[in-house]
């Protein structure tokens, strides 16, 4: 573990947030390797070891399908997110890759201007280096709260 990896993860996370918050959702799957694991769950579910998530994907294709569905099929009131992502805490590096944990806060801005804290939590990540970049082979999004306000359309 070194500053080089810290910078790569920090940069990847900044770009990840920017892609979602600036409505470039089509770029979102590219932050992941294939296959990968993306799961949104709650702190309670995580503590109990519950297997299913609010969102679950184990391939890049499933991530792409989620964005296609949001664009073409699902109906929801227009809104955006603003992600505030903390500095990554690098936990371990081994053959599987680099594990990190990062706090996040997401404000949801609705069509009528209402801005509310939508989710806080931590990303439990497994990163793999691809040249100068790192990609996610695993991102478990552990939301602190067990409540979701109205719906979760955009990814966290």
């Amino acid at each position, binding site marked *: 573990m070194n500053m080089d990896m810290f910078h790569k993860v920090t940069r990847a996370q900044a770009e990840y947030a920017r892609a979602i918050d600036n409505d470039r959702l089509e770029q979102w799957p590219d932050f992941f390797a294939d296959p990968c694991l993306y799961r949104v769950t709650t702190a309670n579910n995580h503590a109990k070891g519950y297997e*299913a998530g609010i969102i679950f994907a184990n391939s890049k294709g499933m991530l792409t399908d989620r964005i296609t*569905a949001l664009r073409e099929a699902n109906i929801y009131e227009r809104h955006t997110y603003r992600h505030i992502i903390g500095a990554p805490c690098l936990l371990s590096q081994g053959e599987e890759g680099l594990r990190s944990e990062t706090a996040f806060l997401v404000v949801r801005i609705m069509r009528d201007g209402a801005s509310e804290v939508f989710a806080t939590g931590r990303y439990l990540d497994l990163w793999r280096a691809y040249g100068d970049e790192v990609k996610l082979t695993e991102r478990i999004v552990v939301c602190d709260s067990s409540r*979701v306000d109205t719906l979760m359309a955009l990814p966290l």
Partner: protein
Amino acid sequence: MTMPSALTGSGMPAWPEGGLTRVPFWVFQRDDVYAREQERVFQGAAWHYLCLEADLPEAGSFRTTFVGDAPAVVVRDNDGAICAFENRCAHRGALLCLDDDGKAKQGFTCVYHGWSYDLKGNLNGVAFLKGMKGKGGMPDTFKMSDHNPRKLRIASLHGLVYGTFSDATPPLADWLGQPIVDGIARVLEGRKHVVLARYVQALPNNWKLYVENVKDSYHASILHLFFTTFELNRLNYKGGLVVEGGGGHHISYNQLDRAQLDAAYSQQNLRSDSDYKLKDPSMLQGFNEFPDGITLQILTTFPTFVLQQIQNAIAVRQVVPRSAEKTDLHWTILGFEDDTPEQRMVRIKQANLVGAAGFISMEDGCVGGFVQRGVAGAPDMNAVLEMGGALAQSSESRVSEAGLRGFWQQYRTLMGL
């Protein structure tokens, strides 16, 4: 809020003409309606889903839940029986139990003044009952047996635990009716239930707007475009709508015949000429779990329980009213103990179809809010429920609002509206 002009003796407006085909918008708005619902629906002659038997594996296991507004504790006692009582200390009314679930060794003790209760909810200890050093303490007339939180009658059905505050509620199976009992049995009977996830979806609307949405088989192919967009449903389904009991229970289902079912599972139901194709269709590659060919069954029991089978995605939903304009939807995603790893993965993937982020149900989280906001200035106007006629009866067509009319029939009977 604008007050309607013609008020009845109860202070509530009169229900509009038009039988079951008209529902006044004030019923989703008024605090006095909400208060009467607590008394007559949630604490009246109806059974309410409390939790799963699987939540109570051994003596002392408990889960906290709600019956309408009222907090309740469900617990397995030392005899193995399931008991439920208000989560409220009989002394000053504080919550007795502050956890979602857990294991109570002896019983529950109120943190405020240390009054304690056994696993059946009987008061068995009062701190400083006799005072200290002969001074203070409760009067001699105080009897612990006079001071218990209210208890619920309990009935279990295929792993679902129901409770009622009322002595007038008929036995659960009679109250539900055989078709509803059978509909629950075909999904849950004789299987060990495993919780795969649990979360709460906060809905910005009256609880009845969500219940209407679940019973509304008319909207399914119009509001929810996931299957249509990806052209995933090209088979001719049979199906139907069952309205039961006092009208407030319903089943809506899709059914394939045997040959179609085999073909569907071999082709994985995915042939599509749509512009949009799933990159990873594994989510829909289910397994043949139900020999009757029913691929979708949405079942409700009055007033606030939903059992869902969408392909292999099984869940129970409990609708918990919080105020006239706020509702919590408690989701429990289920699997079964004898699932193979592959079957379990199918359930986990298909859980994407439902819930707060569900491909085919995320719209249901907001559409109730669209109505709540839409009717804000129109308490005296009415919803029109004429699709499929004016009655609340079962039909082969799901292009019908009979399920909603049935709900209002049972609701109005209990509410005296």
